[in-house]
């Protein structure tokens, strides 16, 4: 069975406006808007690298890249 791919999510807090679009479009519930209305990455291990959050981020604040395991 192929090994599960891992992805590194880079979040630019200076550009993010905590709008919650990434929370709505993510199929794996990786993100959350926390109690203080701030963007939070809660389940980074579940990321499947579909790039939905990256393509729908209006503030260019997210980058998702695959981590190559040597």
């Amino acid at each position, binding site marked *: 069975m192929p090994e599960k791919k891992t992805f590194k999510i880079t979040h630019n807090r200076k550009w993010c406006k905590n709008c*919650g679009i990434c929370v709505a479009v993510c199929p794996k519930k990786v993100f959350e808007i926390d109690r203080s209305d701030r963007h939070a990455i809660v389940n980074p291990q579940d990321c499947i690298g579909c790039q939905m959050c990256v*393509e729908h981020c209006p503030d*260019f604040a997210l980058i998702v890249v695959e981590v190559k395991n040597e």
Partner: protein
Amino acid sequence: MRPDFLRCERLPNIWCPGCGNGIVLRALLEAIDQLQLDPDKVVLVSGIGCSSRAPAYTAFDNVHTLHGRAIPVATGIKMANPDLTVIVVTGDGDGSAIGGNHLIHAARRDVDITVVVFNNYNYGMTGGQASPLTPSSSITTTTPNGNLDRPFDLVKLAAGAGATYVARSGIYFTKHLVDHLKKAIAHDGFSLVDAVAQCPTYFGRFNKKGSAGQMVTSQKDWMVLKSVAEKKTPEELVGKTIIGEFVKIERHSPASAAAPKEQA
């Protein structure tokens, strides 16, 4: 999207949290990247409005012109230097109301430019007034009891005026949007892409459309692909917006009409 297409020192952008303009801008940059255009030969021209702030965040040459007058400036740039790829970034009010006459006449003349309409159904920058694309019975600042007028169908307007490439897409369908932006930019002749975005601050709040995330994902429910819509009855399509490619015809340029005379 190449990160060097963005002017990072200008970011974060001025748009409200959850504004759809950033998503359309990313799709446009992605399309330019995938077409492998020379960044020095791309010019973005914009008018006034929320959407027209977009070129300022890109590393391409850009002109921020008068309200509604982006298309005449773009026509001038294209005529002065036909090697350039000229893209007009405009909003629904800027493009269809203030610059409405320029839009139809540029389509009639078949100028080789691409118009990308960031359609958020209202005038966002000035406080959410009704634009010519605001749907009937929608609430805006100037129509507090619901819009009495019918909206323009921008696709039919451009097609009727003689545009040779017309498409519509939504920001939820980013792959679809990038695909049609690529076809529009590569098209020889006047091309228009109606990119349906959202304004959660005004249009969404007045019409109780929910949060920005809900407005983005709800496009799945009220947008229908053209190929699917052709199999449905008109009753099933009430209240739906059809997305896809509507017009793609050969250019009817005056140059090709003049060519046989020279040979004879």
